[in-house]
């Protein structure tokens, strides 16, 4: 799991052009949106594409999206639960 979290952080920095950040600055459990990294709705779409492109996983509902994209850890748990880690 920790390896996956580290990899996800690097992928998020790359996908969202967070050039000023390094993986260590991203808290695994902190909210990705509003607080935390302060991401916006376009970033949410970008993370949804990332999950599909890199892990072959689709988020089926907005409600599921809110839970899965809550933090880096929740994304990693979603990937692991679906056997894509």
């Amino acid at each position, binding site marked *: 799991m920790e390896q996956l979290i580290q990899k996800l952080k690097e992928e998020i920095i790359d996908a*969202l052009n*967070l050039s000023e950040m390094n993986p260590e600055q991203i808290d695994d459990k902190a909210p990705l949106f509003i607080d935390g990294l302060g991401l916006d709705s376009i970033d949410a779409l970008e993370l949804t*594409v990332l999950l599909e492109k890199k892990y072959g996983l689709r988020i089926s509902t907005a409600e599921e999206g809110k839970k899965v994209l809550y933090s880096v850890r929740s994304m990693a748990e979603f990937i692991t639960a679906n056997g894509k880690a």
Partner: protein
Amino acid sequence: MTNSGFISRFCSIRNNTVVVNNKTEFFRPDEKPEKFLTGVYQHFAIQYPKFYKMDILSKLGFLSVELLLRDTGLLEKYAGHKTGIILMNASSSLDTDRRHQESILDRANYFPSPAVFVYTLPNIMIGEISIRHKITGEGTFFVRERFDASFLVSYIRQLFDTGILQCCITGWTETNGDDYESVMYFVEKTDRPMDGIANFDAATIQKLYDKVK
């Protein structure tokens, strides 16, 4: 003498050089546009993390306005809804359009990027600048073959004369591959005689455009 507007400040970013009111503020040769613009952002210690997410056209426009307004307090004199942004270029958002097209060419690997797609209109740059500076007046982007001083002056004077705007950021912001060029003016409406300040007319803005070229 009376006029309907004067240019209180201008800024250009091109040929890897930043010039504000005739003074060269930054020069770094032999760098590609993306790297050069990131260098400008860092050199002037601008704090706006969203900069990194912008496409190159928005980065160029954003930095031009940052340096145009830097330490001036110019915008504070006016209400947001009386401040406008009227910009122009030749290539619209073509750079980003190409990036988006490349991302959707392969139907077997079809993953368009929302972060790229969102910039496939040049007026998104106006939105970025408006958000940053709380500008809520008219924002319009024109695509013309070349810098059209007469058109810009005529359009903005009409906005001044009809009371829609009291001040305006205007100019030319163009990117296409490795070519980029931005010249911005801050224009204020006035019907007072103005001495010693550049009048807002086509000949003057054309001259300033040519001068810093």
